């Protein structure tokens, strides 16, 4: 019995190393996209696509061949992230950024829902919300929005040519917060808990989340996302509610956009 326990423990440690190797192509691929955003060098994006494709296939093979089902589960979530990253890279080109956003949003929502239905994610227990949770959901997004604005600089989004602001677009931005939390907290973090423990899973999900944000070509944005991911991961661990952390994230995005609109920063 003790020997079997030690065997499983050793297997998990090896699995952790395997997982680090499997997430490396995803992170390096995102970093190549970051380099492309900085230099507009075509070879950087080609390398990024190769790395993400290799990571996707390696993770899929790991799902198939890993002896421990917990390793298979995390590998499948990283494979989904790789495929989403490839989708994001290869998608633009329809001529309408709005159409691209709608397509990406629809595909991501379907992928997150599909993952929840097809993969038996580990149980995290019943939702645990307290009275103070209401206070947190009302106040925390405001502080986070102010924190993001201060950390990134109030004029951060100006470099993205946001154009004439549309209040109609704010709800879609808010829904994006739910999707992001569903993908990184609901899938990556939750699937990694049996293998890496709660803390390790939070760090892994936050790290992959920040790597994905390198697509926007800003290291400060990725760093902010890492710390935001840690906070959201902790909130998810405590509340066990995806809707709860999704609401906090959505309200934070909404407050940020409304603040920018109010200050007229996005208007050219």
């Amino acid at each position, binding site marked *: 019995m003790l020997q079997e326990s030690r065997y499983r423990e050793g297997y998990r440690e090896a699995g952790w190393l395997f997982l680090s190797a499997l997430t490396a192509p995803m992170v390096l691929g995102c970093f190549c*996209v970051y380099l*492309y*955003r900085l230099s507009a060098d075509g070879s950087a*994006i080609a390398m990024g*696509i190769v790395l993400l*494709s290799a990571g*996707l*296939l390696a993770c*899929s*093979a790991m*799902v*198939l061949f890993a002896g421990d*089902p917990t390793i*298979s589960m995390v590998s*499948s979530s990283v*494979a*989904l992230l*790789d*495929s989403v990253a*490839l*989708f*994001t*890279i*290869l*998608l*633009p*080109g*329809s001529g*309408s*950024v*709005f159409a*691209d*956003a709608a*397509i*990406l*949003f629809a*595909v991501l929502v*379907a*992928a997150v829902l*599909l*993952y929840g239905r*097809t*993969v*038996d994610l580990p149980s995290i227990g019943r939702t645990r919300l307290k009275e103070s949770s209401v206070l947190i959901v009302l106040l925390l997004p405001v502080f986070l929005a102010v924190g993001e604005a201060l950390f990134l600089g109030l004029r951060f*989004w100006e470099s*993205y*040519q*946001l*154009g*004439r*602001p*549309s209040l109609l*677009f704010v709800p*879609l*931005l808010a829904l*994006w917060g739910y999707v992001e939390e569903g993908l990184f907290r609901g899938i990556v973090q939750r699937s990694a808990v049996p293998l890496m423990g709660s803390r390790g899973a939070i760090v892994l999900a936050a790290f992959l989340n920040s790597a994905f944000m390198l*697509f926007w*070509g800003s290291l400060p944005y990725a760093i902010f996302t890492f710390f935001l991911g840690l906070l959201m991961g902790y909130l998810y661990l405590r509340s066990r509610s995806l809707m709860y952390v999704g609401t906090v994230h959505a309200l934070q995005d909404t407050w940020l*956009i409304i603040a920018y609109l109010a200050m007229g920063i*996005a208007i050219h």
Partner: protein
Amino acid sequence: MAAAHHHLAAAIVPPLGFADLALPALVVCLVCLLGVLVLGTVATGRRRRMMIPAAYSLLALLVTLIALVLRGGLV
């Protein structure tokens, strides 16, 4: 007016804008999709189900790219 109106979408979709060539994108997508499908064919039960979301994303990308090619948006 309409184009500027929608530029806020750049906050969601990273403004990469290099996938104007359909062939490389289709090749990458097909290779990945075939790889996942082959592995999914070998796998059974729970492990096969774990590959469905990734395969779905790639299939959605393939369909989108084909739709854009047919629409004439890509060459």
